[in-house]
């Protein structure tokens, strides 16, 4: 019986792989639920601060903050949010593809690029394509803390304030649902506030101590919260993508085992048939 033992070994090895992918699927599923909870927990803050920003931006304080002023784009900053680990399907690849498209467009206009990366995958990618990475944070973990976001974001904001860059984009995955994650790009700075519904009232805050200082801290936190949301959402995307990838890997392993089993059985049957015909042939010869 040729190859029977080899096929058995192969089946055993595929079965082991299947066990691992099935376990990873379950781990990703439970982590995804936690990540989704965290994603929803960040919404009240983001909503409130967005309201404040849109109000402050559309009311007319005596001071116009640099983060609110559009200027000609010569250099652009990009915040790219990726995962730390692989085995999550095409999640990172799709994101980088989108990022490259955008970088290509900017490049055609003669705009130079600076990148801040979250996650080792983005770091490696942008290193490989030779982009200028000015700051990075990796190993953020499954429940990101805002303290880890602040440093890298500050780097870009300071460069913006100095006039080294004229626009900042955020590229991250959007969690549509468990099956779908979409790379999306938003402009962080200059801030593009949503139009204020209550503008007709024409009221303004009392700014304490003054509008400049208040705007500074509000806008900074607003930008941080946008990036933080991107990072948290990306974790949910990572887990969802990994869950789906591992589910299909488990299914594929199952199919492979069935096929191998079929080949094994066929081979075994063939060798039995051959043995019988040999015995019968031998007996007839005697």
């Amino acid at each position, binding site marked *: 019986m040729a190859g029977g033992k080899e096929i058995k070994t192969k089946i055993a090895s595929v079965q082991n792989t299947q066990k691992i992918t099935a376990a990873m699927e379950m781990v990703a599923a439970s982590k995804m639920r936690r990540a989704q909870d965290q994603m929803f*927990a960040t919404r009240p*803050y983001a909503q*409130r601060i967005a309201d404040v920003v849109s109000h402050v931006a559309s009311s007319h304080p005596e001071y116009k903050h640099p983060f609110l002023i559009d200027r000609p784009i010569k250099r652009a900053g990009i915040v790219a949010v990726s995962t730390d680990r692989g085995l999550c399907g095409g999640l990172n690849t799709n994101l980088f593809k989108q990022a490259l498209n955008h970088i290509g467009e900017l490049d055609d206009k003669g705009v130079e690029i600076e990148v801040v990366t979250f996650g080792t995958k983005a770091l490696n990618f942008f290193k490989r394509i030779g982009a200028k990475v000015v700051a990075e944070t990796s190993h953020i973990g499954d429940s990101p803390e805002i303290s880890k976001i602040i440093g890298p974001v500050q780097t870009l904001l300071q460069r913006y304030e100095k006039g080294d860059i004229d626009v900042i984009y955020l590229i991250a995955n959007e969690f549509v649902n468990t099956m779908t994650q979409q790379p999306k790009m938003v402009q962080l700075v200059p801030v593009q506030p949503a139009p204020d519904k209550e503008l007709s009232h024409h009221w303004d805050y009392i700014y304490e*101590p003054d509008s400049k*200082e208040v705007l500074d801290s509000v806008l900074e*936190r607003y930008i941080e*919260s946008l990036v933080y949301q991107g990072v948290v959402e990306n974790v949910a995307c990572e887990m969802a993508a990994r869950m789906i990838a591992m589910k299909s890997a488990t299914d594929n392993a199952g199919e492979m085992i069935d096929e191998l089993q079929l080949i094994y059985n066929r081979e075994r049957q063939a060798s039995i048939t051959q043995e019988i015909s040999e015995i019968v042939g031998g007996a007839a010869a005697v």
Partner: protein
Amino acid sequence: MSTIQVEIVSAEEQIFSGEAEMVYAPAVMGEVGIAPRHTPLISPLKPGEVRLDMGGGKEEFFFISGGILEVQPHLVTVLSDTAIRADDLDEAAALEAQKRAENALADQQSDLDVAKAKAELAAAAAQIQAIKKLRRK
């Protein structure tokens, strides 16, 4: 007595949502007390505690390590940097953080910059104060 809606949120979670008769918050210019129908106000907050007068002598404390206070006539929003329920505060951790910051201040050769160390120190001191207050109750 009339009440005002209070929302305390941090970037990571919602911490408190409810009604209070009076809100006290550590604004950068000094502590402010907000009563219902206060005029719209916006101000950064120092590390310290937000105190809610719930009426009937009941009070609630929240430690915050800075943030933004936004006031509208019927709504007070505290956008806290990292607000944790004061009950949950770990005094040991606060003391440790204070010590770390003190060490950083004593040893100027380290990379930590002085402004950051001072901020850490202020935050840790405010945490300890909040805990002491809770103990006394």
